[in-house]
């Protein structure tokens, strides 16, 4: 079997790691509450539309919900799936390229196939 190396952190490293973990935890809780808040806002907009509150037309609500959804996907990726941390450059590049190319297809279909 290959040799197993045991690495011991120095006290300073240990402290730094703890501080980072604490910060990361705080960020996650904050982002989680933000996401719940966005979800509540989305639901209340739909309820407001159902109740025919003035100003809540579907031309306002649909783009807003789409926008909130995009923000939530971003938060999910960066804070809960750790994309904001180091060493994620390549996955990010591939995801953004893929999203761009994926976006092109519906764009073409909407502009020159269906209408």
């Amino acid at each position, binding site marked *: *079997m*290959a*040799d197993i190396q045991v690495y011991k952190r120095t006290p300073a490293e240990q402290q730094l790691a703890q501080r980072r973990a604490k910060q990361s935890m705080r960020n996650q809780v904050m982002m989680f509450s933000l996401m719940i808040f966005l979800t509540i806002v989305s639901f209340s907009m739909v309820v407001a539309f159902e109740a025919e509150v003035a100003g809540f037309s579907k031309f306002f609500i649909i783009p807003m919900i789409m926008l909130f959804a995009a923000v939530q996907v971003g938060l999910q990726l960066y804070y809960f799936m750790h994309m904001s941390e180091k060493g994620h450059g*390549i996955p990010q590049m591939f995801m953004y390229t893929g999203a761009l190319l994926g976006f092109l297809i519906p764009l*073409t*279909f909407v*502009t*020159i196939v269906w209408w």
Partner: protein
Amino acid sequence: MSSVAQKKGFGATLWDWLTTVDHKKIGILYFLGGGFFFVLGGIEAMMIRWQLHIPNNDFVSAGLFNDLITMHGTTMIFLAAMPILFGFMNAIVPLQIGARDVAFPFINSLGFWMFFFGGLFLNISWLYGEVPDAGWTSYASLSLASQGHGVDFYAIGLQIAGGGTLMAGINFLVTIINMRAPGMTYMRMPLFTWTTFVASAMILFAFPPLTVGLFFLTFDRMFGGNFFNHTMGGNTIIWEHIFWIFGHPEVYILILPAFGIFSEIFSIFSRKRLFGYPSMVFATVLIGFLGFMVWAHHMFTVGLGPTANAIFAVATMAIAVPTGVKIFNWLLTMWGGSIKITTPMLYALGFIPSFVMGGVTGVMQGAAPLDYQLHDSYFIVAHFHYVIVGGVVLAILAATHLYWPKMFGTMLNETLGKVTFWFFFIGFHMTFLIQHWLGFWGMPRRVWTYMDGQGWNLANLISTIGAFMMAIGVIVLVINAIMTSVKNVKVANDPWGDGRTLEWAIESPPIYYNFHATPLVRGLDTVWIEKMEGNESGLTPAEPIKDIHMPNGSIIPLLMSFGLFIAGFGAMFRTEESWGLPVLIFGLLWTFVSMAARSLQDDTGYYIKKDEILRDLKRKGGQN
């Protein structure tokens, strides 16, 4: 497992090849599998040319001619060009980056077997007697109307083969990102590795649209779907878009590794560092990106409207810029170099004018108004053969000579190699140059015969003679390969004498774990740097010799692919035979059981002991 060569029976050798997960052996399997389909596609091409060599010929019927052109195109693109390139990538890229294997050896094997069974499925259509006949593009209105099972073979066969390609692409991406030797930064990767990387990224993004399109086609034809049926609210143009969203990147997936191979050849045989390496990398990435923005130039005459046509025309012409950068870099690599005209170099020299001609006609077609004149004429046939034969096939033949020693340990005969080149090169220009004029003179593509007295007779005859010269060239190559293998004269590490990258610093063919110790990479063309500094071996180890972890071979990839192969027949005959549905379910179940077997089995591979590596080293006199 011992590394000492043992006499093995035929059965044991066969089992070894069927279960192998070694990238070098899978490379050879890809090479031989692709070579087999290349010969099949070539025979189809000869039949097409023989049918057209005189007017009003009745060598084949109109229906058989449709089968031939469809299968020629499909076979050459999906089953010959791509697998052979995958063969070289498998055999060479892990060596170039100093790795012991690809990242996922099991998936590598699965990718090969899926390609093989997909290709077999497609070609069984010849034995069954109902062959795909809607063109290699299989435009939906035609492919939906096609009688019999021909297009079903196309849809299911390509689905299976395409799955294999996608796996191979992902495997190379992960390998190149994660398994480079210490010191090999992105900007020190040899250009063949770079082009493999970009081509694999393109596979990752281009093959899912093909998968979706083929599923739509399968559902429309076999399961009562209506995606492309306009009478039921579908849209037949969607197939064209989906096909070309895949199909255009596909041609760059083919040509980029070809560019990589030629970059290696120019720099090896000019004995110079590749001129403008960073701009070559940039151009490769840019071509990969722009390749996704131009698909609608195949559809200018569909009626997309002037705005869409203009956008796609401009994007198309933009691709000429990075390609031009590459051409000039190759020319300047040779400039002032000490050039050795070997067979691979001869191919590289022939490639530049041929490919430039194909590129120039490409820009001509990119001009949308002119494309209305050229569309569906022989001009198009001439153009795409100029880029694919003049680019990809020349690269494949060049790499066959260049990497033959690294793959098989013997050297192809140089004289016969040059004979092959001249027959193939002259034959190629004779076949396709005149077809530009045939297009101008109004000959439409995909016609099975033509009337006398239209001025097309002589040109078609010249074209046919050229095609047979290409065939002679390929036959000479096959004879060369057989002779070389029979003689079996083993060669040293670097038979060309001027190798620059890591694969030339180790045995030909390399021992199954490639490197005794992972090498340290000190710059671009690391072996060249070491040699210039007096290190004869060309390698500096990055670590002491220690135990090496290796994967076990497995028969499961073959079984998984075979299940899909069976399921394909079930899907095809589901409605007309009572055994159709059970066979479909049985095949899928077979695949899932194989997958479960793989998941539940705890296979952690094995270790090669340090003593054994030292013994191997001693046997070779301490050399790599």
